[in-house]
C-alpha cells in the first residue's frame, strides 16, 4: 500500500510551480478572470510556452512530439495548472482528447500531420458531437457526409461547440452510411476550419460564455479527412470518451482551493459577533465538501495508477469518478452559496458587495453546464449501473 508520488514527479512539480509563478503573469490572470468567451481561459501564447516545454503531451510517444513520461508527471502538471488557475482552453481538447484518439486509430500520415503541432501548442481543436436532435443519444446524429469522387460533402448542424471561433480544426461525428444500423454508419472526420461552407452562430451561456451552433452547407473535405475506420466512428468514440473521462485528473486541486478559501471566509465572517464557522451546519457542510474533494483526489490517483500499470482506464473508478464530479459537485456549490448567503447572488460588476470576488456566483451559474459536459449526471449513473454492476437493461 503506497500513497506517495515517485520522486521524479515531485521534483517535476517544483519545476512546474516555478514556471507558473514566472509565466502566469498578472495580465494573464486578469484576462482569465474577466474573459467572457471562455470558462477555462484561452491564451494561445501561454499554451505555446507550455508546448515548447513539451508539457502538453508529457505521456505521448517521443516520435509524435511527446515526452514519453509516466502518468504521474502528467498528473502533477494537471494539478499544478488547476491549482494555479492557468488557462487551458487553447490546448486541452487537442492535447487530451484529439491527440490520444489519433495515436490510437489515426493513420501514420494523419499522426505525422496533426500530432506535432498539437504537442507544440500551435493548433487548437474543437469537438462537434452534439446536435439539435442528438444529445445523450449520440447515435441519432443527422449530419451527413456523402462521398463524391475523392471528396466527402458534409451537410447538417452541430450544437454547443466551445471555442470554435478560435480553432484551427474541428473534429466531428458524421453519418456516412444512412442505410446501416444507426451505430454502424457513423464516422469521425477532421475539418480544417478554413474550409468553405462552415457557418457558426454564437450562443451565450447563462454565465456569459460563448458556445456555437454550427451549420455545414456542402462542406467539401478530402477523402483522408476520415479519422480511424470508416463507419466505425461510434466505436472509436466509446474508447475516446473513456480516455477523456480519465483526463483532467488534476482538477480536484482547483476545488480544494475553493474550499480552503471558503473555510477562511467562514472563519473571518462574523454573524452577530460570532464566526460563521461556529455554526453546526457550516461545520458539517465544510466537512462533507472536504470529504468529497478528498475522494475526487483519491479516485483521480487510482485511475492514474491503473493507467500507469498499462491497463486501460478502469471502468469502476473512471465511471464512479464521473458520478462524484457530476452529482456531488453541484451540492457543494449550493452549500457554498448558502454560506455566503445574500451575497451569493451578487456578480463581479458590483465588486464591493460580491464576497470572494463573486466566485460562487460564477460557480453556481456554471454548475449546470459543468455537470452536462461530456454526458449528463444520470448518464454517469447509468454507466455505473450497467458497466460496473452489470445490471440488466
Amino acid at each position: 500500500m503506497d500513497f506517495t508520488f515517485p520522486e521524479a514527479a515531485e521534483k517535476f512539480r517544483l519545476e512546474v510551480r516555478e514556471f507558473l509563478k514566472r509565466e502566469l503573469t498578472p495580465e494573464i490572470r486578469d484576462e482569465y478572470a474577466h474573459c467572457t468567451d471562455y470558462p477555462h481561459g484561452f491564451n494561445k501564447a501561454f499554451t505555446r510556452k507550455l508546448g515548447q516545454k513539451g508539457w502538453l503531451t508529457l505521456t505521448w510517444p517521443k516520435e509524435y512530439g511527446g515526452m514519453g513520461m509516466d502518468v504521474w508527471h502528467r498528473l502533477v502538471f494537471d494539478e499544478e495548472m488547476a491549482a494555479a488557475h492557468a488557462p487551458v482552453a487553447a490546448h486541452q481538447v487537442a492535447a487530451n482528447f484529439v491527440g490520444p484518439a489519433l495515436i490510437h486509430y489515426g493513420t501514420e500520415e494523419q499522426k505525422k500531420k496533426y500530432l506535432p503541432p498539437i504537442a507544440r501548442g500551435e493548433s487548437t481543436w474543437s469537438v462537434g458531437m452534439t446536435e439539435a436532435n442528438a444529445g445523450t443519444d449520440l447515435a441519432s446524429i443527422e449530419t451527413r457526409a456523402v462521398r463524391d469522387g475523392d471528396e466527402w460533402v458534409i451537410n447538417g448542424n452541430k450544437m454547443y461547440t466551445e471555442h470554435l471561433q478560435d480553432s484551427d480544426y474541428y473534429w466531428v461525428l458524421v453519418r456516412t452510411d444512412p442505410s446501416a444500423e444507426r451505430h454502424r454508419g457513423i464516422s469521425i472526420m477532421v475539418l480544417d476550419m478554413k474550409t468553405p461552407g462552415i457557418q457558426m452562430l454564437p450562443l451565450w451561456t447563462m454565465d456569459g460564455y460563448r458556445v456555437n451552433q454550427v451549420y455545414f452547407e456542402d462542406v467539401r473535405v478530402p477523402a483522408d479527412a476520415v479519422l480511424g475506420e470508416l463507419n466505425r466512428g461510434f466505436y472509436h468514440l466509446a474508447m475516446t470518451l473513456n480516455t477523456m473521462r480519465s483526463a483532467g485528473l488534476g482538477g480536484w486541486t482547483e476545488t480544494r482551493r475553493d474550499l480552503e478559501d471558503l473555510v477562511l471566509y467562514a472563519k473571518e465572517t462574523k454573524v452577530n459577533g460570532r464566526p460563521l464557522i461556529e455554526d453546526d451546519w457550516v461545520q458539517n457542510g465544510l466537512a462533507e465538501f472536504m470529504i468529497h474533494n478528498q475522494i475526487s483526489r483519491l479516485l483521480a490517483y487510482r485511475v492514474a495508477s491503473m493507467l500507469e500499470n498499462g491497463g486501460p482506464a478502469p471502468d469502476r473508478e473512471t465511471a464512479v469518478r464521473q458520478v462524484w464530479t457530476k452529482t456531488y459537485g453541484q451540492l457543494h456549490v449550493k452549500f457554498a452559496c448558502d454560506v455566503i448567503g445574500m451575497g451569493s447572488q451578487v456578480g463581479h460588476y458590483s465588486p464591493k458587495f460580491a464576497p470572494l470576488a463573486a466566485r460562487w456566483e460564477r460557480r453556481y451559474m456554471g454548475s449546470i453546464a459543468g455537470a452536462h459536459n461530456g454526458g449528463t449526471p444520470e448518464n454517469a449513473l447509468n454507466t455505473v449501473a450497467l458497466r460496473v454492476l452489470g445490471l440488466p437493461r
Partner: protein
Amino acid sequence: MDLGPSETQQVLKRTAREFLQTVVNPAIVRQMEEDRIGFDPAVWKQVCELGWTGLMIPEEYGGQGGDVSDMAILFEEVGRSLLPSPLFASGVEAALTILALGSEEQKRDLLPKLASGEKIFVVALTEPTGTYDAWGVETRAERSGNGWKLTGTKLYISYAHVADLLIVAARSGEGDDAIAFFLVDPKVNGVKLTILDTIGKDHQYIVELDGAEAEAVLGPERGGWSAFQDVLAKAAVVHSAASIGAAERCLELAVDYSKQRVQFGRPIGSFQALQHKMARVVTEITGAQLCVYEAAYRLAVGQDARLEVAIAKAAASDAYTNASIEGCHIHGGAGFIRGSEMELYFRKAKGAEVILGHPRWHKKRVTALLAEMAQPAEHH
C-alpha cells in the same frame, strides 16, 4: 503509488475470505446473537492460530509484526462476514492500547498471551455520554494503599463478559492528563457486568465499577490520554475497513436480488430508479474505501493522519449505513423480515456507525482541522 493492498495483503485477504466462508454464515451470526458467550470458542481458537489476534503485535512479543494497514485489509473480510468474536476488542483495541501505553515489562507479560489467544483483553473507555472526547471519562480512580480503586459506569463495552482483564480508562483529577488506564480483573468485587440490549445484539456490556480494585496502571499514571489518541485513530480505521467490507456485501445482495426479482415482467434491476440507487452506493463505497486505505497507510508509516482518519471513519460509516438502508429497500418485504441476510447487515450497521465516533463527530473534527490549516492563498 498503488493506493491499494500490496500483493502480500491480497493473499491475506483471499485466505481470510476462504477461511471465513467455512466458519461463518448468516445463520451462525444469528445464533450467536442469542448465545450467552456470543462466539464459537472453536472458531475463536482457529482465528488465534491464524495469527489474527497478533497481527499488529511485533514478533518479539509473540505477534506477526504487521501494521495497521494489514489489519485494515483483514477487517474488510471480517466485516463482510460479520464474524462474531472478540477479535476487534482484544486483537485491535486492547493490543494497540498495550502497545501504546504499556511498560516494557507489561508488554512482555501481556502481549504474548493476547497474541496466542490464551487471554482476552478488553478496553473499557466509553461511558453513558457516549463520547470519545476526554471529558467523557468521568470514572474516578482513587488511591487505596499501594493501589487504586475505581468507581463509575462504563458502557458499550464489547465482550466484557469474556475478558480476562479489563483496561479501564479513569481519572484521578481534572484535565486530560489525569486520565490513566487501569488493569482490572473483572472477577473482583465491585465489578458488575450486565448485557446491553442493542440493535446489533452484539454483546456490548454495561460495566459498573463500585470501588473496584485495579491490579496496576497500564504504563504512566499521567499523560496516557495523549498517547491513547493513536490507538483511537488506528482502531477507527480498522473498524472503517470492516464497514467497507460489510457495505460491499450489502451491495452484492442488492444487485443479486434485483437481477432475480421480477415485477411488471422485468427484473427490477432493470429499472433506472433502482439502478441509480445502487450506482450511488457503489460510488460511495469506492470513495470511502480509498479514504480508509489512505488513512491506514499514513498511520502505518507514522505520518500525521488526523484529517485522513476523520474523513475515513465518516465516509465509511456513511457508506455502510446507506448501503444497508438501500439494500433493505431494494429487497422490499424480503429486506425487513427477521431471518433475511439484509436485515442482519442493517442492524449491524448501526453499531459500526456510532463506535469510535459517529460520522458527525468526525465531520466536526474535519472542519476543526481545516480551520486550523487554512491560510490565505499565495495568489489572488
